[in-house]
């Protein structure tokens, strides 16, 4: 049977058909749907781990214990998981271990566009790269096979366009995989210097074998066509190249590390002009050049952003396409916005009012950096806000600190905000950390996390108590507030930033998109009370607009959260009497 699957769903299907029984991940666009799809299979234990490092460690434990395990993350997540990754290359595996990593060229939903192929080379772990959903499934199955054949974890690299494109996949049966026997073997699994030295040697022997395999594997294939142009490519870049250049010759690499050197040399010899077409860094190109082969690559193609068929056609064939006139005037941009009813809006409204320096973090609330709030000064990586606020205090002293905060979501705090909070306490910091607890991992599409009280499969579990957690690490001043109580929030913010010693403020209110959130009737404007002072426009609520002669609430968008009622000094916003709840 054929189905139209997302690349991510096809990765999950590949793991299912391979008989995998353990799946771990921390959600991150564009990788999230892999583990969401895995969790739908009853046969597979799945979890949202606290972060990618933990996810990989859980998967490694499962592999050592004899199961086939898959661990998924976005590209920057691999940075977090890099510590176990490099040493896993030494230990190797027992049951097959596959690590799916999704890069985001063009940064559709990321803070950088790093190229994770370098991790494969740095850690010396083979990496496969599919170019459509069928290959996603097939390559994951091949990855499990290779993992066990060569005793190594295997990376499968996706990019956004592969992960988030649907294409046809032929479904297969699930393999009846039996747990491998677990045998205590400290020489293999305990990595201390004496053992690790031996294992490093083993790793190099293994790499030599995998290089030979690469030259013979069907993962890498030559498609002969017109030999005046030869293209070495992989992943979605292969699809762009095929579309742009048609029937020329291709060496399509399914395995991007290690490279099939003999195959490359043979291909290069038989074509007139050789191109390497790859997104982001010249990863393949540099290695081909090092082989002494003349090749055209990044002198034609950018290292920034995504490639496209048009770009390839222009740069290789010199073809320009006639396009219709652009729109006459500059059209207004349509950036993403916080939803109507979003609890974060209240916090950023107050932070803007107080003119604080705000160290931000990764989540929906990063939108607090955009107009109208523009209430965020920094955003670096998961969990960075807390350490950065502490660093700012150490650099600029108490006066500056008294107008500086860290802002971090509940899931991000658990991912990597706890260790910097301990650092702050231990090193006598005085910073204020605001945890925006909206009871869900929102940006990636509503995943549960350790603070929500539910597992990935929706089963009730123990929820982390953020108040007790903060107290337990030594924070004496922990405050809990509903961010929609604007005056109370402002008062607490002033008190805690002024106070000596570290503070944690937990701004608790659920994401407005959660099903259980009901606000009651929608809001309307009482024109007799509205002074048209436009103070409410600072909220940046998509439902409130300035019509030119007054303020209007959009019926289609208002969810009835009432934040504007709380804000307006003149009582101009009122709930519609007796009407049904606003629809989210």
């Amino acid at each position, binding site marked *: 049977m*054929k189905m*139209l699957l*997302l690349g991510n769903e096809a990765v999950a299907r590949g793991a299912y058909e391979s008989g995998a029984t353990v799946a771990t991940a921390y959600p991150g*666009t*564009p990788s*999230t*749907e892999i583990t969401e799809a895995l969790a739908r299979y009853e046969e597979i234990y799945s979890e949202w781990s606290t972060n990618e490092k933990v996810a990989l460690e859980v998967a490694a434990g499962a592999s050592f214990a004899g199961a086939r395990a898959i661990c998924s993350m976005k590209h920057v997540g691999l940075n977090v998981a890099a510590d176990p990754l490099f040493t896993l290359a030494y230990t190797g595996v027992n049951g097959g271990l596959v690590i799916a990593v999704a890069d985001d060229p063009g940064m*559709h*939903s990321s803070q950088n566009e790093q190229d994770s192929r370098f991790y494969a080379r740095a850690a010396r772990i083979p990496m496969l790269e599919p170019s*459509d959903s069928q290959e996603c499934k097939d390559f994951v199955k091949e990855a499990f096979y290779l993992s066990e054949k060569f005793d190594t974890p295997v990376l499968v690299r996706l990019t*956004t*366009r*592969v992960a*988030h*494109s*649907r*294409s*046809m996949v032929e479904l297969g049966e699930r393999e009846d995989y039996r747990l491998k026997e677990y045998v205590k073997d400290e020489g293999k699994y305990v990595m201390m210097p004496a053992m690790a030295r031996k294992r490093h040697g083993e790793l190099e022997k293994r790499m030599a074998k995998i290089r030979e395999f690469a030259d013979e594997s069907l993962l890498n294939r030559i498609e002969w066509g017109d030999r005046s142009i030869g293209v070495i490519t992989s992943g*979605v870049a292969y*699809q*762009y190249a*095929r*579309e742009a250049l048609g029937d020329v010759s291709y060496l399509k690499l399914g395995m991007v590390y290690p490279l099939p050197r003999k195959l490359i040399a043979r291909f290069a010899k038989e074509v007139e002009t050789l191109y390497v077409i790859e997104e982001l860094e010249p990863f393949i190109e540099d290695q081909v050049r090092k082989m002494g082969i003349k090749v055209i690559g990044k002198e034609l193609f950018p290292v920034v952003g995504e490639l*496209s*068929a*048009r770009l390839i056609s222009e740069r290789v064939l010199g073809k320009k*396409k*006639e*396009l*219709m*006139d*652009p*729109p*006459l*005037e500059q*059209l*207004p*941009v*349509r*950036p*993403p*916005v*916080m*939803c109507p009813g979003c609890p974060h809006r209240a916090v950023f409204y107050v932070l803007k009012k107080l003119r604080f320096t705000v160290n931000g973090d990764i989540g*929906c609330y990063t*939108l607090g950096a955009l*107009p*109208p709030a523009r209430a965020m000064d920094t955003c670096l990586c998961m969990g960075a806000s807390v350490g950065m606020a502490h660093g700012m205090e150490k650099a600029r002293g108490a006066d500056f600190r008294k107008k500086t905060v860290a802002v971090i979501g509940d899931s991000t705090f658990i991912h990597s905000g706890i260790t910097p909070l301990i650092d702050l306490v231990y090193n006598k910091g005085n910073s204020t950390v605001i945890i925006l607890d909206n009871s869900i991992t929102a*940006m*990636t*599409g509503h995943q549960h996390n350790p603070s929500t009280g539910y597992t990935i499969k929706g089963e009730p579990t123990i929820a982390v108590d953020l108040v007790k957690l903060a107290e337990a690490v030594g924070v004496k001043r922990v405050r809990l507030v509903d961010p929609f109580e604007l005056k109370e929030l402002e008062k607490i913010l002033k008190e805690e930033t002024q106070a000596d010693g570290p503070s944690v403020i937990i701004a608790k209110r659920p994401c407005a998109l959660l099903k259980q959130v009901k606000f009651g009737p929608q809001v309307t404007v009482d024109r007799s009370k509205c002074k048209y002072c436009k103070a409410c*426009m600072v909220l*940046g609520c*998509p439902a*409130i*607009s*300035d019509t030119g002669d007054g303020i209007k609430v959009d019926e*289609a968008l208002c969810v009835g959260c009432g934040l504007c009622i709380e804000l307006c000094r003149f009582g101009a916003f009122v709930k519609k009497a007796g009407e049904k709840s606003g629809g989210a």
Partner: protein
Amino acid sequence: MIVGVGGQGTLLASRVLGSVGMREGCDVKVSEIHGMSQRGGSVVTYVKMGGKVHSPVIEEGEAHIVLAFEKLEALRWIRYLRPDGRIILNSQRIDPLPVILGESRYPDGVIREIKKRCPNVQVADALETARKCGNPKTMNVVLIGLLARSTRIKKETWLKALRDVIPERLLEVNLKAFEEGYNYSLV
């Protein structure tokens, strides 16, 4: 190519089209973008079908049809249309935040500007039609109905595709919306 504003139901529409393509025996690729842009931002989904589809992405000057859920978005993405392409447009206006904040202006005569560049435009008030069906969120399916009528693909295939994608409890209202779109009288 489906263009609109995050939250308008473009993803579901693209999945229906993908299913139609599969049922017609085509190779199909549907490219979505998840994540940040979904929060009320400008969103675009590509649906490609044919003998063999390589790139999952539609580029400028390539789309045969643009299904636009909002008129400013139709104008924003119009260069992706082929010279002989056509637009099926929901006449709805949704103000982007910079317009709401008074920092930019929603341009006048958007539909006129679209018609200047593309002679083949069908404009419908799909939102109003969806409301009359009993659920404004079925606006996307009204537009699919409008699209279905102007293709050579059998109506039955479209109905099967809707059943493939839409959950049982929402099927009735969506089938009604499809019929309304299919029979929509254009001015």
